[in-house]
């Protein structure tokens, strides 16, 4: 029987010292998908991932990882990059990758061979034998990411994988994630940067305050909102203005409003007839960011967009 979901969770609950950190989370990550868990810091993303992986047990609810109710039993088929990266500082890079592979059932000799190849492919061939403590933070993080995939896992779970990487390395990581999925893996990652989820994910779950506020495809999220029309006219007044929806917002000579249900054509006819003087007219589908704001509210969305240092 082919398995439909790499991860299934129903009603996951976790309390820490009497405070509910995760409150009934449901997730279903299809096999072969890139799945994003979005939410501000403290939303319960990491706790959810740790429960899914079996690092901690939930106080309520069920989980299945690669079809198994005891996640650690599937550990050899899973790769995990924790939010707080950790490697032994004295270990050479290739040994660190081989060690992470060996923890998940890969032979040490094979692990070293693959480590050399992976490091070479990612431009770190010349630091393969250098201890982790001598590497830059970005390099060490790349080493840990390579250690996460060295054993060829079927499911890769990455907790905030982009934080701490510069733009170049973020691009490389996106390419690596796509390559892993193309090779048959499923990727689940958490992020507080909406742009990464929008670029990479087919499906997302938005978690705020320990609850899933949205679960579905990125298109579904964006599809919750009508496309936005932006109109700029030469003339300010005219009978055509009656045709604009009541919710239209004006900013100088520019108007913006949701696309009316009958489409743009009736409005367009009125604009031409009324000689509004159309200087610009665009119909744009809302981005994930707008959808996110719509789902969680402006306060939470603003928190998400703050740079890391200001959090």
């Amino acid at each position, binding site marked *: 029987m082919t398995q439909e979901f790499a991860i299934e969770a129903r009603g996951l609950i976790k309390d820490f010292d009497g405070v509910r950190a995760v409150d009934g989370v449901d997730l279903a990550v299809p096999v072969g998908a890139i799945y994003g868990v979005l939410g501000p810091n403290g939303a319960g993303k*990491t706790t959810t991932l740790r429960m899914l992986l079996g690092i*901690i047990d939930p106080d309520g609810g069920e989980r299945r990882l690669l079809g198994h109710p005891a996640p650690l039993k599937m*550990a050899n088929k899973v790769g995990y990059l924790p939010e*707080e990266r950790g490697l*032994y500082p004295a270990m050479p890079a290739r040994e660190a990758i081989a060690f992470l592979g060996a*923890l998940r059932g890969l032979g040490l000799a094979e692990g070293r061979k693959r480590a050399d190849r992976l490091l070479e492919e990612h431009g770190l061939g010349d630091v393969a034998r250098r201890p982790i403590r001598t590497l830059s933070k970005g390099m060490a993080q790349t080493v840990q990411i390579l250690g996460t995939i060295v054993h060829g896992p079927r499911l890769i779970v990455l907790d905030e994988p982009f934080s701490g990487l510069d733009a170049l390395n973020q691009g490389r990581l996106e390419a690596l994630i796509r390559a892993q999925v193309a090779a048959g893996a499923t990727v689940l990652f958490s992020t507080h940067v909406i742009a990464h989820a929008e670029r990479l994910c087919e499906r997302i779950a938005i978690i705020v305050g320990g609850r899933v506020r949205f679960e579905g495809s990125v298109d579904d999220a964006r599809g919750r909102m009508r496309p936005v029309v932006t109109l700029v006219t030469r003339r300010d007044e005219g009978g055509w203005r009656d045709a604009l929806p009541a919710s239209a917002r004006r900013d100088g000579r520019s108007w913006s409003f949701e696309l009316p249900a009958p489409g743009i054509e009736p409005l367009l006819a009125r604009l031409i007839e009324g000689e509004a003087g159309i200087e610009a007219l665009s119909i744009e589908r809302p981005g994930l960011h707008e959808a996110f704001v719509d789902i969680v509210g402006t306060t939470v969305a603003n928190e998400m967009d703050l740079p890391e240092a200001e959090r």
Partner: protein
Amino acid sequence: MNPSLRAALVIARRDYVASVWSRAFVLFLIGPLIPIIFGLTFGSVGAKMQKVEPPVIAIIAPPAEGRALVEARLRVTRALGDVIPEFELIAPTADVRRQSAELLAKGGATAVLSGLPDAPVLSGSRQALWAHGSEVEWIAGEAWRHAALARAGLDRPAARVKQVPIAEATRLGTTDRAALARGSQLVLLFLTMILAGLLLSNLLEEKSNKVIEVLAAAVPVDAIFIGKLIAMLGMSLTGIAIWSAAGIAAIAAFAPGFAVNLAEPAVGWPVFVLLGVAYFIASYLLIGALFLGIGGQAGTVREVQTLSMPLTFGQLVVFGFASVTVDQPNGLPSILASIFPWSSPYAMIARGALRPELWPHLVAIGWHLVAVTAIIRISARMFRRSVLKSGGGKGFWRRLSRRSSRPA
């Protein structure tokens, strides 16, 4: 191989290599040898400084009288050992008093006996007379009695005692075996104390460099604990092997008769050595698993340091409890000490020295295995509950210290 055991060995390998392939390990190896080297160096210097000639008593007498005394001394030493100074026979000159004074002045004798057979005189320093006066008197009396019996044509009555060996006799040689039992308990305590303490801070490394999260996501916490125990046990056995080799070499060089002076343990030497290794491993794992569990709850080096003193005293109390075994190997306290997991290896090694039965050892080793497994299970569960649930920082000790540092 079971995936968890395999992962435990991966962790053990990493820890072992990280510990043994380090400069600090050289110091670790030298550590216990320092007092020995120190002792040997200063011992030999001291021995040279205090070298004292053995006491000799010069006997100035005609050959017949002199020989009678030497033979009397021999009869005594044959039965009681070398308890009386050497006798040296010297032919008398014309001036015996002067001869005596010269002998004593030149250091040729500790004391001089002259005037035999009728008016014996012992001359020497006050100290020598105090030390050897009664000995010489007794030997002279023995020579006189012997001669008197011979003159009367009587044989010395010899009391014949028949010797019947009984294998089960417990008081036979028990003093030596008790010393061996106590000695082996002390060695076990010493090794466990200096080596198991390392496990108290063992998980701090993974907690501080965040590797614990990677390990816990890949491997059950029990397997992490087992891996760490195996690594530290391996490191300790490496150390013990090197120290033992150094010790054997030192004994061969400086005290070749040492082994001859040791009592034969009741189970025999080969089995006793095997039991020693087995009980060291058991004791190390039992205390190590507990230390790993307690240390795992600590968040900082300071907490570990604070914990180590009460735990050391705990070990001493357990050791004291186990030492009752030596007096009564089959008494109730001794059986209780053999059952209580942490005192059991000490109690059992003493039993090996004192009693010949082997089956209690098999039972004990099986019990140790069960106890170690249970301690690892409980420690791992505590670790998962109080450390992993919060990503570090909400452990029992942390909560305790936070509470105590809170302003009143």
